[in-house]
């Protein structure tokens, strides 16, 4: 598991650096999603019509208390198939981490995801897009939980796993900075 987590974190670093290095592109796409486990908002830079590098923040629910109180942060890379048409097919690879909180503990766990879906461009300028998507997420972290009671000190290794299946709807808007 430690090797997989290192790969996820490396992916997160690569996507984040790519996003940071594309700050000078002339189009930013703001996207918000509601999915089965939470909500997130991201900003992506569009260096090429079919490519996006982005960073996102969100809230999700990953524990049994079903509360959306787990903070998520991610970076991602998206390729848009059929982008020249009104209906296109984005495929996104993302890597991030979940700062999870439940009744008994707080943890930080890296995760990666692959999502695909359908987007429809709206409006005359095609600045607005709505879409549906689904994907698979992987993330795992083990940590020691301690508890003290009248019998003594008890320790146990807890395993946190990100819920693997995600599906949701999204809305995005393209921001074109004004040129002087």
């Amino acid at each position: 598991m430690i090797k997989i987590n290192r790969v996820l974190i490396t992916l997160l670093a690569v996507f984040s650096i790519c996003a940071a290095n594309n700050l000078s592109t002339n189009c930013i796409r703001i996207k918000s999603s509601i999915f089965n486990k939470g909500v997130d908002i991201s900003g992506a830079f569009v260096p090429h019509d079919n490519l996006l590098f982005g960073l996102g923040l969100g809230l999700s629910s990953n524990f049994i208390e079903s509360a959306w109180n787990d903070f998520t942060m991610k970076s991602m890379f998206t390729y848009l198939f059929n982008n020249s048409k009104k209906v296109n097919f984005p495929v996104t690879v993302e890597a991030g981490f979940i700062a999870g909180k439940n009744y008994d503990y707080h943890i930080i766990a890296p995760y990666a995801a692959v999502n695909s879906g359908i987007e429809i461009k709206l409006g005359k300028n095609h600045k607005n897009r709505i879409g549906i998507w689904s994907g698979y997420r992987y993330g795992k972290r083990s940590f020691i939980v301690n508890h003290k009671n009248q019998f003594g000190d008890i320790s146990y290794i807890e395993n946190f796993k990100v819920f693997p299946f995600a599906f949701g709807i999204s809305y995005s808007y393209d921001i074109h900075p004004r040129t002087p």
Partner: protein
Amino acid sequence: MRTTRTICLLMSFLLINCQIPVLSYSTDDLEIVIETGSHWLHDYPLILELSKKNPPQLAIWVTDLDTNYLTTIFCTHKIARCAWQSNSGNLRKEALPFWIHCREKKFLNSDSNSTETAIPTKSHPLTDGITAASPEKGFSIKINSNYTGSGFLLFAELNHSTDFNDYYQKNSSPGTDAYSGGSEGSGQPAVLFSCELDLSRDELEVKLELSGHSSPDGNDGNLYTDMERLTTAKSIVSSITVKKH
């Protein structure tokens, strides 16, 4: 450049925090080892023909030699927090009835200011032991005990939801021996493992014995030794062992 450096520092921090933890044991520490059986994961029905693999609900607790409840060592989240997914307010006492009735004897005699209850609820969850998600595979628990009594009994009770068989059916009528909470109930009753331990012994390695099963509908805290009607419930674990380091 500054952004890239910040990102690299953050990633380094995350990498350092991804070490796999290991429980380290000192002299006189106890280790409880649960080895899973062939039926540790049970197909819990979702919708249509879809199901998901669920590990069992589990409680491990200790009593004195007169079976007076002392404390819980470990308990899974759903019963420790009454976090059942489709119980419609039912506390599901048929899940781990021997453990619940063992606790009842203590809480009936305790002072009225105590906020803990025999059956944990959402507003009064279990507080005296580790609560955790049901493990999907075998695991260990480490105890550094300060118990000073001459000996104690260790119990482990396990149960699957909707674990029906030819005798414990989902449409069994209430009041019959085969009733175990209806279509969302247990099916086969919880199984109970136990052993007696004496911490004064230098060397200690004891395997918990399968003592019997609990009440199918959870209405009493009796131990039933007729195991012939249980099928897959007897294969939830292959062994539970306690050893002293």
